[in-house]
């Protein structure tokens, strides 16, 4: 718990200001902590008088910490291809591995993998551990988790990264819990602190309103899932050499209590807004479902896909696969046109890295303009049809 030395406390109130959670108040010239305290430690560092400390002994440091070395990524493979996020993981993984002067390995699981491992090597992997087995055709948390856990125990990488996809976010927590180590979800930035090799993992929280940097100081590996479309993929080098290891899991590790009967691809879910160069997105300002008809027309005129804010999806004007933002997809197209989107942080975190952002909104104070490259204030129902017309003229 947070301990306040009332003899040392000068009641300056700095801690009260620093506390993000409203957990400290100065009462009668002395800081008092309440139950909102999350023991984040911000106040301890801020206290010039040195009156604050966090009590409770540090978690025991894992005995073999120094033996863990190397960067490992989980390469997701589905429906005959490596998921794009895997190449992004190789990109950040390569950077971290070069900084630490350690190898970068990839774990590739699936059925009928073909030459997928070679691609991983071309994109930066030094070693690929591959299990190609019909049992792995469908994803199951237990079998995928068992194999990854066993490879990690044998290879002892200091860092393990996976994509924050439906699959990664489902089975990586199982692996981390089995290994009794820390896991940070949905990271958008990863940096290794040179002094001690600790991975600083930055991620959005509270719907993107707050960023938090997390570390896993006492246990290995340091595990993180990484948001798709945030990291840059490593360059493709068809001359790159690496080692391919066919890993043989033990038979008892290939059992799952959960059975997958079949996988259904959904047409609406094939909307892949993360892959195009242009996205036209609509929000609450469209006022009703018909607004998306206009969005589709604009998207068609510019050759783009249709995205949406959470408000529009919650209103059931358009299905969830179109949602951009913290709880939807992260996109970084060359051009993002936001129509009637106010720019709540939870939306902005999903599209802010777009090259050019156009915002069309009737409210000149809408926060979307803060991230916009170009802003147009006005009625989108007046502006967008004219825009479509002009673009069509231009394109002939």
């Amino acid at each position, binding site marked *: 718990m947070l301990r306040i030395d009332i003899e040392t406390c000068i009641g300056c109130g700095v801690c009260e200001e620093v506390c993000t959670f*409203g957990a400290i108040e100065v009462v009668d010239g002395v800081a008092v902590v309440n139950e909102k305290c999350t023991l984040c430690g911000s106040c301890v560092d801020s206290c010039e008088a040195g009156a604050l400390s966090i009590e409770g*002994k540090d978690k025991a440091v894992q005995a073999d910490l120094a033996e863990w070395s190397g960067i490992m990524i989980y390469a997701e493979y589905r429906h005959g291809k490596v998921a794009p996020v895997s190449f992004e993981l190789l990109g950040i993984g390569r950077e971290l591995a070069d900084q630490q002067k350690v190898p970068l390995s990839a774990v590739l699981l699936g059925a009928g993998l073909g030459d997928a491992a070679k691609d991983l090597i071309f994109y930066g992997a030094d070693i690929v551990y591959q299990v190609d087995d019909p049992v792995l055709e*469908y994803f199951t948390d237990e079998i995928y988790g068992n194999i990854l856990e066993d490879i990690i125990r044998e290879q002892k990488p200091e860092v393990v990264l996976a994509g924050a996809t439906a699959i990664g*976010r489902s089975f990586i927590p199982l692996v981390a*819990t089995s290994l009794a180590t820390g896991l940070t979800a949905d990271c958008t930035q990863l940096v290794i602190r040179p002094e001690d090799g600790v991975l600083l993992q930055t991620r959005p929280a509270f719907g993107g309103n707050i960023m938090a940097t997390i*570390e896993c100081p006492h246990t290995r590996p340091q595990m993180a899932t990484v948001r798709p479309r945030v990291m840059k993929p490593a360059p493709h080098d068809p001359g790159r050499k690496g080692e391919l290891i066919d890993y043989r899991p033990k038979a008892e590790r290939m059992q799952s209590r959960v059975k997958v009967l079949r996988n259904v691809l959904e047409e609406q879910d094939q909307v892949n807004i993360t892959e195009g160069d242009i996205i036209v997105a609509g929000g609450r300002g469209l006022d009703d479902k018909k607004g998306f008809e206009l969005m589709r027309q604009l998207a068609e005129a510019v050759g783009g896909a249709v995205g949406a804010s959470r408000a529009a999806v919650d209103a059931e004007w358009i299905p969830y696969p179109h949602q951009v933002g913290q709880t939807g997809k992260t996109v970084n197209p*060359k051009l993002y046109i936001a129509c009637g989107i106010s720019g709540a942080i939870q939306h902005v975190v999903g599209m802010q890295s777009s090259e050019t952002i156009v915002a069309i909104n009737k409210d000149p104070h809408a926060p979307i303009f803060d*991230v916009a490259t170009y802003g*147009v204030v006005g009625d989108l129902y007046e502006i967008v049809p004219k825009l479509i017309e002009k673009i069509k003229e231009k394109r002939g």
Partner: protein
Amino acid sequence: MKIIVCVKQVPDAKDVRLDPKTNTMAREGVQSIMNPFDRHAVEEGVRLKEQHGGTVTVISMGPPQAEAVLREAVACGADEAVLVSDRAFAGADTWATTYTLGKAIENTGVFDLILCGKQAIDGDTAQVGPGLARRLNIPYVSYVRKITGYANGVIRLHRLMDDGYDEVEIPLPGLLTVVKEINEPRIPSLKGKMKAKGLSIRTLNAADIEADVDSIGLPGSTTQVVKVFAPEFKGERAMLEGTVDEQVAQLVKKLEPYL
């Protein structure tokens, strides 16, 4: 079917802001609510009970005021409530949380099914459900959007994937995390509210669940927060001016490279 539903009290995340100057969370008007995904988990538990019989116990780890979300769950049809609360639990990451919840659930006795929301809207980690299943050594399925059947101790369901869904079978005891599409949570009934009001909530502290003090709270956590800060944006904010036609003309010119 004996069902346990895990619920969490969270600040309404859409109202949470960090003042970039002071690095302080603006907390005026931020309400504490039941994690929205957990409301769907409660509803699904109550529906399963209504169809197949049994009981629904809601459990929450949190400060004493988290009692409010337990009462809300009971008002919506849950039967019993357990609050896992101790100052020693403060600062727990998902690793320490799953340890604590696991011990508490072992303490409350046998169960067939545990339901959780897919994630909480404060941390958005989605790690507690799978981690808890591992602690209890039971199978689990994440992102469940539809339960299609239950027979002979096996639940059949649809699990949401990035590109569609999987049809899955899970034997009980097991754990499911649910997405919002699974159901429409009911409004508390008057009878439910009366029951919730009078309900005595069982409270478990660290000693009650025989927790190892090195595995709970901040000291038991594998991860630590180094810092929190407000996100930064890099917009150029070039506002176009003139009549609508003029603005559209300027915009089309600016967008030329993309057309």
